């Protein structure tokens, strides 16, 4: 008798075995079905609803998937042998009721039990996103979700540059960019998507070159246009999250109104000189009451009170910091992870090196986002600012 056979005989005595029929019934009653085969085997099919965790990282990651040591674990491999070794290890880890599915996945499949071809990342994506896959809060399911997601960046400038770079790096599958401008040399002090050689090129084109070089696996859609009330809904409606990186008041009101109407989360930031602020406008957020831009500023100011549209100075890295914070919030919303900045406005003053947070309240009488409000329609969003003179 070989050593391995001796060992298997011991394990068969120690680990209870269940049939596919019993395993299916137990899993309907709350037991966790755990497929411990390798990735390439799982790719050919795996029981519906099974946890998938290969033996290589089994002990290290099982608690992230099944934190309750009292929950019954039904371990499955291809033929019912490797699952015995895995089951024993799980018992030693502290799981109290661990059983092996006899005959493994081949018997499961032959007996007509439900299975699916799971969507999994290919080997290249697995390597590219390995630092995300290591994190239980993202993992393979989260990475697949990001690859299926669509984020629209309005403005491919100071805020849009770092936001686009990090959304692309993180593997957000579709990134839309709205910008009508061409790259100007004065942009290069902070708009890191663009290069000296691309001065004069439309920003959405320059951005596409940079983003596709970083991550050829994502789709970059350029909208080289000004947003206005006639095109805003058509453009925004195709995306899951809207990132407002505009530099003017008129467009901010327009984006707000469209996001309220379409129920889209709006990750909003603005920078000025050495400071900036960021918040998430999301009245339909299901975990708490979110507000919209008009809860804070009900109407655009008349021209004589509006801020000047003349170019203002800004420390180069300020839009960088706020565009990055926007990327963090966009990805959290896509993954439904943590607490987004809904109802909170974060302010950073680079000169003092301090972050401060303000609570932002929903206006119960807001014409746009209060309960039962009927969308009042888009206004005439003429450029709202004092003359440049």
């Amino acid at each position, binding site marked *: 008798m070989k050593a391995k056979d001796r060992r298997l005989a011991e394990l068969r005595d120690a680990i209870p075995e269940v049939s596919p029929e019993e395993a299916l019934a137990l899993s309907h009653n709350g037991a966790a079905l755990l497929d411990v085969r390798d990735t390439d085997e799982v790719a050919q099919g795996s029981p519906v609803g099974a946890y998938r965790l290969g033996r290589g990282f089994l002990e290290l990651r099982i608690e992230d998937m099944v934190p309750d040591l009292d929950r019954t674990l039904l371990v499955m491999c291809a033929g019912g042998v490797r699952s015995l070794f895995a089951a024993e290890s799980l018992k030693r880890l502290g799981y109290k009721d661990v059983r092996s599915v006899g005959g493994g996945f081949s018997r499961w499949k032959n007996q007509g039990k439900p299975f699916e071809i799971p969507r999994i990342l290919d080997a290249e994506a697995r390597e590219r996103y390995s630092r995300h896959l290591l994190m239980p809060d993202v993992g393979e399911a989260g990475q697949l979700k990001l690859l299926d997601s669509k984020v629209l960046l309005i403005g491919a400038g100071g805020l849009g540059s770092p936001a686009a770079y990090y959304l692309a790096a993180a593997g957000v599958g579709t990134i839309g960019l709205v910008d009508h401008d061409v790259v100007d040399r004065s942009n290069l002090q902070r708009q890191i998507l663009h290069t000296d050689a691309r001065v004069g090129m439309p920003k959405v084109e320059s951005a596409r070159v940079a983003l596709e070089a970083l991550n050829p696996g994502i789709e970059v859609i350029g909208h080289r246009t000004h947003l206005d009330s006639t095109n805003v809904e058509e453009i925004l409606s195709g995306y899951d999250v809207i990132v407002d990186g505009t530099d003017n008041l008129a467009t901010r009101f327009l984006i707000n109104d469209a996001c309220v109407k379409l129920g889209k989360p709006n990750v909003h930031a603005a920078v000025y000189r050495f400071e900036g602020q960021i918040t998430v406008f999301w009245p339909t957020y299901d975990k708490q009451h979110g507000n919209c831009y008009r809860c804070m500023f009900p109407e655009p100011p008349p021209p004589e009170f509006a801020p000047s549209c003349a170019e203002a100075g800004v*420390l180069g890295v300020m839009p960088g910091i706020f565009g990055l914070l926007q990327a963090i919030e966009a990805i959290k919303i896509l993954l439904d992870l943590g607490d987004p900045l809904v109802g909170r406005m974060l302010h950073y003053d680079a000169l003092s090196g301090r972050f401060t947070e303000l609570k932002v309240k929903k206006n119960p009488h807001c014409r746009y986002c209060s309960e039962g409000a009927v969308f009042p329609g888009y206004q005439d969003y003429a450029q709202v600012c004092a003359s440049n003179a």
Partner: protein
Amino acid sequence: MDDKQLERYSRHILLPEIDLAGQEKLLDSQVLLIGLGGLGSPAALYLASSGIGRIIVNDHDSVDLGNLQRQVIHTTLDLSRPKTESARDHLHAINPGLDIDVIGHRLTATELAHYASQVDVVIDASDNFITRYAINHACVATRTPLVWGAATRFDGQATTFRNDYEEAPCLNCLYPNQHAQDAMGSCGDNGVFAPVTGIIGGIMAAETLKLLLGVGITLHGRLLRIDATALEWRQSLFTRDPLCESCSPPRQAPPSRADAK
């Protein structure tokens, strides 16, 4: 500054705190950036776009696919190139007028001290505590301000060690136990949320610019920490450890930087 430079830096020059003189100062500045990974990528890009005249970049690694999830200074075409070369190309592409010096090997203690004494600020964007302590040692010895950051999973932190001050705490005052710190693990073991490295690199660039311009209040004696899941920032204060092995006894007079330039 010529006309092209005036145009390029116009948004800085409009700020009274920077103005022409401040931008000239940045163009005359020199920094040493160690690490061209998650923290170093955004820091380098923003220091270059801001017009830091000479940036010495140091990394002994080459670009691999797993880097591109967060290291935005490199591209898919740069795979297996030395990170220093990939970074230099990108920095020159966004700002051709800068001096980008590359060092593609792990710096010895002697070399660290040599380069630290040449520059105005050292930026530690490395990913392990052995390197961090070596950089700290060199910066304490040469009294060079050190901008420091770290990130793992959803957490990041940054501070500035004002080695140019008489009584400033150093990295070893903040984190005295090297072994305990290495046990914390790196992002290679624990993973890291892509934009958290970016935001810490951005804060590090902001600290560097403040040091070079002499404006604002740096993170001297303050550790800024982010929890990205809640998007909350916390600040904790720390002071010099009078028994610190690295920065006590009292430091010597700073060497003259003018000679090195």
